[in-house]
């Protein structure tokens, strides 16, 4: 009796969870299937779940009508450099807020935290105008400059650094090590897990970011993948095979990053959930 009830519950579990998994995955199946179709196969009735004739035309066309390889490069370049700047800057500030006492420190840290309440949408127009007056519109530098400030990363890393025992640092200072050395040789290695979490989350945020690169990067040579895709969406509205091919290419790096750092990502939003 007990066993049967247990088995029934399992069966129901699998039925419901598989239905939900279909809901999650069917769109991706459709994305892949569409990207392998020829243009005339897009508008058949009934629709073709699988392409009758698979072709890579859409992928080839994508690189023909648009400097798509360039967009992939731009996205990688901006995401990697932006993440490096952001995480280094945040961990340096976190070291000060976590371990070095000075007057006004808590007020300044409170200031850092308070900025998290300001939506990016409020700052985008003035930031655009600031870049404009610095002649940095449509440049990598311009799109990257705001990365120097990362309140969430600073907060998360500070919690970690604060919890490190002071004795480690004091021993190092006793040996005459500079703060720079202590930071790079002792602090950073000790907070590696948190550092990985912040790095991965920042990278994913950068890779998927849309509004800021959309307004700053206007020339085709500088555009990121998300901006390029939305431009293609405007110019080739119904070439869905090409749009889906582009979307697939934009997802692959995220899947790779996730595969290697699943644990760190999930730690990250547990912290987010408690915030």
């Amino acid at each position: 009796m007990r066993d049967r009830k247990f088995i029934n519950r399992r069966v129901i579990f699998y039925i419901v969870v598989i239905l939900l998994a279909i809901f999650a995955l069917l769109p991706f199946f459709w994305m892949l299937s569409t990207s392998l179709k020829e243009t005339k196969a897009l508008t058949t009735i009934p629709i073709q779940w699988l392409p009758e004739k698979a072709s890579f035309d859409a992928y080839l066309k994508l690189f023909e009508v648009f400097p798509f390889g360039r967009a992939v490069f731009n996205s990688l370049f901006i995401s990697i450099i932006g993440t490096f700047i952001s995480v280094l800057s945040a961990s340096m500030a976190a070291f000060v807020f976590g371990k070095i006492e000075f007057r006004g420190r808590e007020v300044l840290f409170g200031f850092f935290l308070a900025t998290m309440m300001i939506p990016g949408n409020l700052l985008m127009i003035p930031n655009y105008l600031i870049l404009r007056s610095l002649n940095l519109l449509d440049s990598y530098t311009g799109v990257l400059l705001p990365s120097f400030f990362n309140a969430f990363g600073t907060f998360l890393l500070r919690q970690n650094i604060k919890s490190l025992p002071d004795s480690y640092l004091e021993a190092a200072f006793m040996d005459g090590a500079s703060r720079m050395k202590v930071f790079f040789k002792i602090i950073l290695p000790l907070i590696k897990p948190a550092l990985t979490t912040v790095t991965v989350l920042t990278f994913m945020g950068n890779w998927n970011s849309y509004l800021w690169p959309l307004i700053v990067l206007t020339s085709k040579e500088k555009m990121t993948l998300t901006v390029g895709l939305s431009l293609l969406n405007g110019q080739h509205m119904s070439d869905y095979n090409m749009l889906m091919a582009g979307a697939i290419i934009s997802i692959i790096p995220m899947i790779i990053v996730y595969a290697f750092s699943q644990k760190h990502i999930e730690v990250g939003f547990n912290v987010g959930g408690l915030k």
Partner: protein
Amino acid sequence: MVTLNKKRKSLDIIIFLLPSLFGLIVFQMLPFGYSFFLSLTDWDVLSKINFLGLDNYINILKSSEFWKVLGNTLYYIVLYIPLILIVSLGLASLLNFKVPGRKVFRVIFYIPVLTSWVAAALLWRWLLSPCYGPINEILQFFGLNGPSWLYDKHWAMPGIVFASIWKDMGYFGLIFLSALQSIDKTYYEAAKIDGASAFQNFFNITLPLISPTMFFVIIISIINSFQLFPQVMIMTQGGPYGSTQVMVERIYTYAFDYYKMGYATAFSWILFVFIFVVTIIQLKLQKKWVHYEG
């Protein structure tokens, strides 16, 4: 606290804080003040700047467009929040069962979260295609005549909500899952001895104990709902007949299509006030409503 090496202390503090302070001052504080100043002007980038006082704010609040946009946002919230709570909490309860394969499902539900909104919105525009999209094909299989979705002013917003649920369920699902896993099992064991049903367990034990997470998810969802952008920009561009126009889409359009920087920044300050009020409500009510363990 580290007290040694006092000599270089101030210099070190400045060096370590410099990158962040640069970002904080130039790209947070300066634009914060600058945007408020702009919101009081009629600047259009090209011609001379004129001071208008609160005219932009008054004009926005008097325009029927603003109230329509607010209504669209509230419509989104009313559809989205109950659905995302049911789906993500249901998902979390399922993944909380100790059965083989649940790790694989965790990964599956996370893939939409990893996808950028741009890619997801392109995909959903195609999925919701009235004639050639699989969603209406599936509906037809069940004998239902699917609507025109993004081409119908009554169905465009529900279509966007549909896509958002798909994209967000894994994220909130895993947040709920970690809340469920932190519940002390002895509560359920005690309830079992008292002969409580699964239904009673859920409403008397689970729900009160995950209320902080529930509250967090609702607040985050409301704040995000006020800032919808890529999905609208790519799926409908605010149409049809303005039925999916939302605040950030309007701000973007006024600023970067019409170059009405003053009007657009005033709009973004009104948006900020909404988000600020929701955040304050969160901070105040969190203590009262929510049952915290221990």
